[in-house]
């Protein structure tokens, strides 16, 4: 395999349409998280965790994913802060509310798991699970299958900075970079400089987390994940590298954590973190792409939609206790024959 230098992202501006679309999804993502927090505070759900503050990175990621079922599409091994990515991929936000309220109608977990724990087989979104970093040990598996299949499908794995201390992050780098079989993986670390209450600086001897990839000969980069334009361009370039070279890329994105770790830490807005939406909206206004009124309108519209959705979800039934014995085992091989149409089960709604 050739040692082509890493493509650098094009200097050109993103198109106005694209910027407006990114903005719309970022607002939608933020409003969704704010709604989920509100639900928590009103007692409509036991626990909140999510990604407000990461929209500038998570939205472009979702837009650039090739979604679909099977090896020719991207596999997503996500952690619990990816709701904006899911919105950008096209989920209907009401389903996130259902997950928050653990209703029987929650299409992802049937009321069994926390909010943010998506699962969409027909889009290759594997079940999000709570233990930190295990997704980094699993992701090489889908990538091995994609490497063998050929084509342009890749595996994407995301997680936080503190979690890179787990051995699983190392496992991911080791398996992705085996000379016997380098893997088409986009390995993402969203670095918000915190693991719950534990600050980054005293725990990390490495200057940048991306340096750890370099030791394995993996193309690696740290970017400003608070800038959606940077994020979009860098993600596009990194993905193109992975799709075409069939080799791994480690991308560290510096992001903000705007409502603390989770509801366990109060889920209140923090003051000392940069808000990617504020900066981006200022820029859009300056460039004359959107007016403040338009943006306020957008937000109001999403708010109204989610408020209606919230009212709806409140009326929906809770799962039945007897159902705990359902789905321990699968009767059918749903994942078999990957790339085929599958059983046609499709995610509710959207885009």
């Amino acid at each position, binding site marked *: 395999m050739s040692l082509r230098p890493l493509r650098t992202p094009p200097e050109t501006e993103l198109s106005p349409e694209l910027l407006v679309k990114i903005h719309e999804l970022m607002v939608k993502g933020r409003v969704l998280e704010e709604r989920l927090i509100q639900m928590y505070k009103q007692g409509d759900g036991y*626990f909140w965790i999510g990604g407000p503050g990461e929209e500038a990175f998570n939205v472009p990621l979702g837009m650039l994913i090739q979604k679909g079922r099977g090896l020719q599409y991207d596999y997503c091994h996500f952690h619990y802060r990816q709701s904006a990515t899911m919105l950008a991929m096209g989920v209907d936000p009401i389903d996130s509310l259902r997950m928050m309220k653990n209703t029987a109608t929650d299409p992802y977990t*049937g009321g069994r798991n*926390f909010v943010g724990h998506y699962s969409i087989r027909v889009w290759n979104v594997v079940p999000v*699970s709570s233990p*930190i970093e295990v997704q980094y040990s699993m992701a090489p598996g889908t990538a091995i299958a994609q490497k063998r299949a050929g084509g342009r499908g890749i595996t994407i794995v995301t997680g936080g900075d503190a979690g890179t201390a*787990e051995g699983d992050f190392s496992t991911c780098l080791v398996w992705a970079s085996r000379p016997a079989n380098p893997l088409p993986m986009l390995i993402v670390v969203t670095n918000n400089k915190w*693991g719950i209450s*534990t600050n980054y600086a*005293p725990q990390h001897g490495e200057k940048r987390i991306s340096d750890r990839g370099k030791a394995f000969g993996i193309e690696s980069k740290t970017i400003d994940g608070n800038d959606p334009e940077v994020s979009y361009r860098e993600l596009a370039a990194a993905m193109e590298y992975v799709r075409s070279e069939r080799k791994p890329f480690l991308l560290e994105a510096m992001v903000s954590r705007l409502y603390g770790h989770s509801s366990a830490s109060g889920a209140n807005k923090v003051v000392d973190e940069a808000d990617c939406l504020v900066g981006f909206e200022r820029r859009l206004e300056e460039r004359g792409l959107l007016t403040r009124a338009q943006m306020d309108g957008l937000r109001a519209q999403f708010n109204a939609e989610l408020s209606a959705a919230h009212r709806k979800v409140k009326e929906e039934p*809770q799962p039945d206790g007897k159902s705990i014995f359902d789905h321990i085992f699968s009767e059918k091989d749903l994942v078999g024959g990957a790339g085929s149409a599958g059983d046609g089960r499709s995610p509710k709604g959207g885009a």
Partner: protein
Amino acid sequence: MSNMVQAVRMALHVAEERHGVTDVFGEDVGPPLGGAFTATQGLKTAWNSPLDERGIVGASIGLGLAGCRNVAEIQFCDYAYNTIDLLKLAGLMCWTCVGDWNLPITIMTPVGSGIRGSVYHSQSFDATATHIPGFKIAIPSTPRDAYGLLLTCIVDPNPCFFLVPKALMRVRSAPGEEIPGEPADEKALSKMIDAPLGDRSKWQPQWPDTPDLFIPFGEARTVRQGRDITVVSYARTLPLCTKAAEALAAEGIEAEVIDLRSLWPYDWARISESVRRTGRVLYVNEDTEVTNFGEHLVRRTVDELFFELVAPPKLLAGAHVPGIGLADNLEMATVPQLPTIAESIRTLVRMQP
């Protein structure tokens, strides 16, 4: 009067002051948070580790080998399952080197359901822990027991598990079961040892002067006496068993309730004395029910007391399903609740040979 989490904190304080504990560590254990459940606030030896359970258990072993008594926390027992090899290693170290080394370490971790913790904050650890030889295992159900058992774990020269039932962390002692030396007033105690909200950088706890209290391993506590049936439990389900027994007294059923308190060693003498008297026994815990520690107790019961039983010994435990679901109905249906416990006692008492 303290709740369990405060009792744990006071024991840790006593241990670092008087029993040579050098390190209390784990994820978010140090300042500013002082533990996901606040159990380690204000301790002078508490520090934040990297987010790495294997490193935490490994460092605990290493510190122990270096003669440093330490308490290592796994934030939730659900996250200890990538370290079972290291825990087994800790358990076999003394044996494998024929007593050349000992390992004075305590692995502390919150266990069980009861806080709507869903799939990954509700698991039990008693089946796994009791299947690891070489560990002693404490699991309190009152603040005073937590205080006394934790100190016993810490001064023991061997690896110990200290399992803290999440559902009981905010529960307070019954009158008469205070920790000696603690202020009777909840608010007064809180003011002394609970970290304030907001900036904590200048906060210093004021520790009440609580004396040593060592509750020995292998000594259960009879919470309630009764002639009709023996009920043996621990952790979240223990107070439910007591409540069930109290309610059933109205129906003329007198259940004896035993709080096991330590799972290894465990107080077989007390169980068997009671079962010999009552002829009936119900074991209650909330771990999944296949290959469950309660099944060990059932086995021992039939091994040693078979011909003295008037009804089959029973186990009431968690359903054998992959997780505890988030929705109320799901959690309720998965692990034993008050009505099921009462009904199990009733059924067992009615059973005639």
